[in-house]
């Protein structure tokens, strides 16, 4: 028990802003921007203070409304969740700047509806990061999913169908998770994670526990789109309104991976997770390696920038799942670092895509010619993001990949090393193909005609993009302190980086 309510404000600010946006946004569009940006700025600062507090005074637990666990809802604020809190609110803040502009462009007259769902989604993500209760986690997961379904359905073209597809897959995932929680509740009589964790070792029901564990994991894998459970993601994310994709793509999969880590270490123990069932740990690393290779391969087949990015996103999920399951401190460090880095680089690339589509109206590859000349700043930031995805130092993507690779070398999982290297090389091909398109003149054509507008994106789209690109470099160079001060504390006991 502690006296600070700071993290509650962080979580509540977007939720309250959602209602305000809905009401005031009906009156005038002008309210939406200040309200949502204000709430998220508040959250980001609050999250930063929370993180600093945790680093200074250590982790703490918080009971909502002072109802004691195991009955009340408990929140856990430890280094990792505080870091995620900052990541979610910061990324959402940057994404919102861009979303304001592109939603105004794509969904005129429906902005208040869009941002109502959008802010609830952010609140849900923040809640997911904090919760220490297995069932509460399910509720928040559904809140984020349902708002995401709504946001995606607001897109044009076949977005409604893609959203429906996502609803089916998402619900199956949620059911699996809920079944897992059900098993645990029957076994232990509690829903509090810490409580479950303390009761489980004393039980003699290996089959039931294993079933619960499997249900929980598979449920989350569907939600995070681990190949081959990814089928819903490319359509959903590439047909969503640009403003929604910019926030959902960087955050949704990363938060789910964080949840997987929570399930593995807070409900179950590292010992149970890695060593109770022979072959499972190695099998999952193999599966993650295949996931990386297959998703990277599929990315090669895409002819649309945003669709290509969605497949890269799926490959990156494999990076993190594999990293956590390497079962050593280095691999876990890499996975946790990659959660932060991947969120930032996905954000960077999606922001760049948003700026490009705002100016040119298309992300098809054959429409990207001459972009370096037309949008130099956007493309400069895009280039930094791409370098980070390929893993070129000193961008942050290199360093998380370094830890992941090192973890794999230490664990002698050479298939994972090979998959990571292959995926880096494929990423290089993917992005240099784009650079080539944007750099060279189209075959047989001269300078772009007047029909293609010149000039960079408006400042509201450009400033978060440039800021994110700079962040990629800063986080990359700050890898040492980040690991030393935050991530090292988040590793389960007995695992050192």
């Amino acid at each position, binding site marked *: 028990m502690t006296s600070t309510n700071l993290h509650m404000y962080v979580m509540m600010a977007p939720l309250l802003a959602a209602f305000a946006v809905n009401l005031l946004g009906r009156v005038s569009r002008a309210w939406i921007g200040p309200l949502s940006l204000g709430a998220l700025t508040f959250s980001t600062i609050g999250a930063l203070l929370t993180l600093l507090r945790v680093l200074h005074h250590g982790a703490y637990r918080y009971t909502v409304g002072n109802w004691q666990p195991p009955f009340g809802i408990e929140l856990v604020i430890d280094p990792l969740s505080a870091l995620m809190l900052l990541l979610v609110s910061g990324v959402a803040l940057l994404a919102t700047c861009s979303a304001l502009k592109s939603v105004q462009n794509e969904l005129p007259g429906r902005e208040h509806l869009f941002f109502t769902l959008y802010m609830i989604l952010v609140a849900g993500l923040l809640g997911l990061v904090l919760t220490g209760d297995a069932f509460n986690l399910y509720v928040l997961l559904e809140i984020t999913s349902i708002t995401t379904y709504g946001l995606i359905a607001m897109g044009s073209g076949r977005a409604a169908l893609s959203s429906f597809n996502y609803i089916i897959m998402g619900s199956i995932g949620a059911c699996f998770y809920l079944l897992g929680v059900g098993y645990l509740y029957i076994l232990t009589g509690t829903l509090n994670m810490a409580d479950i964790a303390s009761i489980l070792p004393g039980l003699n029901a290996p089959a039931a526990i294993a079933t619960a564990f499997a249900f929980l994991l598979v449920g989350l894998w569907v939600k995070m789109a681990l190949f081959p459970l990814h089928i819903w993601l490319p359509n959903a994310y590439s047909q969503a309104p640009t403003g929604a994709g910019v926030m959902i793509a960087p955050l949704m999969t990363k938060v789910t991976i964080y949840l997987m880590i929570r399930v593995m270490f807070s409900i179950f123990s590292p010992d149970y997770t890695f060593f109770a069932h022979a072959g499972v740990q190695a099998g999952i690393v193999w599966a993650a390696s295949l996931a990386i290779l297959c998703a990277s391969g599929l990315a090669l087949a895409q002819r649309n920038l945003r669709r290509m990015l969605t497949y890269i996103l799926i490959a990156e999920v494999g990076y993190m799942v594999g990293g956590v399951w390497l079962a050593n401190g280095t691999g876990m460090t890499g996975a946790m670092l990659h959660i932060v880095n991947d969120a930032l680089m996905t954000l960077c690339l999606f922001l760049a895509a948003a700026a490009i589509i705002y100016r040119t109206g298309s992300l098809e590859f054959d429409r990207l010619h001459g972009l370096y000349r037309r949008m130099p700043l956007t493309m400069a930031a895009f280039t930094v993001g791409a*370098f980070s995805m*390929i*893993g*070129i*130092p*000193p961008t942050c993507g290199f*360093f998380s990949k*370094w*830890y992941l*690779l*090192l973890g794999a*070398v*230490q664990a002698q999982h050479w298939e994972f*090393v090979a998959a990571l*290297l292959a995926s*880096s*090389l494929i990423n*290089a091909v993917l992005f*240099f193909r784009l650079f*080539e398109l944007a*750099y*060279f*003149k189209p*075959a047989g054509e001269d300078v772009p005609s007047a029909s293609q507008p010149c000039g960079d994106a408006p400042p509201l789209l450009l400033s978060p993009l440039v800021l994110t690109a700079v962040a990629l470099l800063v986080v*990359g*160079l*700050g*890898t*040492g*302190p980040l690991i*030393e001060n935050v991530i090292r504390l988040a590793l389960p006991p007995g695992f050192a*980086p």
Partner: protein
Amino acid sequence: MTYQSSLLPLAAIGISLAAAVPIMLSGRKPNLREFWTLLAAVGKFVLVAAMLPSVLAGHGFVLTLAEVVPGVPIQLRVDAMGMYFALVASFLWICTSVYSIGYMRKLKEHDQTRYFAAFALAIAATIGVAFSANLLTLYLFYEMLSLATYPLVTHERNAEARFSGRKYLIYILGTSIGLVLPAMLITYALTGTLDFTVGGILAGQASPATLALLLVLFLLGFAKAAIMPMHGWLPAAMVAPTPVSSFLHGVAVVKVGVFSILRVIFFIFGPALLRELDYGTIITTLTSITILVASLIALTQDNLKRRLAYSTIGQLSYMVLGAGMLTAAGMTGGLLHIAMHAFGKITLFFCAGAIYVASHKKYISEMDGLGRRMPVTYGAFLLGALSIIGIPPLGGFISKWNLLLGAVEADQWVLLLVLLTSSLLNAAYFLPIVYRGFFAGPRDTGAGEVIQEAPLLCLIPLTLTALASVGLFFFPGVFLELVHAALFR
């Protein structure tokens, strides 16, 4: 060598990095833009030279930029070997900058702003490689150089440039991510450090098989050194404007590859370990094959720049071969050849560019009688060629002499034979060019088109580097001292 903390190495790298910004902003004022280029070039040389006396006296400089991986920070360190390479590169960059301005203006090239900005980034990365304190930092600058060179290779932006750009990236980026990165990780996993340590870090840390694997990964992974079969990108990259070929593909990029390999041989493996395992043979075998095959291919090339490219491939392997001999003279010769070859080859490329600027001719078969019209250019070409063949009184003789001595010291008569054969082949592919220039072709070209020497801004640098090749024979002092300090102190 003792090290003191200093901002000088960062300044030496950063000055051209920073200059890229004003260069890009002053694209509409070519004179101002060229002023920035020259200012950065001279400034960089001054900054590097300012550290020279202290390094010669045994006091290096060190600067830690960021802590990223336990035991392996991003760190700059100026030691004798880095100083040696930085001195060569930063001096030749001044010559190249002057030459670039003359060349690009005379040909009225497009996109000169992008060209000069990318060039500034490339030289910053080159000095970064020279001043890297560990393998991770070196890798960082190595990649930066690869990427900064891409817009230069594809400068023409036509189908051929696109194809060459792809080839360049597949070779360079493919090997650095696919071979060097895993080799670096395995080394780190074994030893917990990547610091360049005198005597190496790998001794007693791994089985001979693992070490052999690592050695091959590093040798082929640093594909900028163009050891066969990783050489294909270099002839392809010749589509770039000639100043790029001369500086980057004659000096900076390729020698960064060699420098990286030598760093690994001397400071990661350590000569003692390689000698003990007798792994010098791996190095000498790979490089001997490259030397002979590349020289033979060079004979068949009619495109002047391609012939020079194959010559470069052969000469680069000389340097690695010398290190692979693992004898004092061999290592000295290998390291020394970096500078000697740099001055010679840059002269040859400058001449090729001057010929192109003056006559728009690329093929040797078209160049009959050209020497009589361009005596200065052809004179410089002759000097450069003689230096690379290794004939006194030119700088190339000193390094080749040391290499031959090294082969004798190592009791490797095969290597001696390889070196001598290659020298003959060098003469066979260089001297006919000069002969045709002066003596072949019609005596009298008539009153038609009159070909004159290239502009003065091209002519001065190539004369300077040609004379420097001669000067290096008589005064190799500083370079020799740095090489000795790098290897034996």
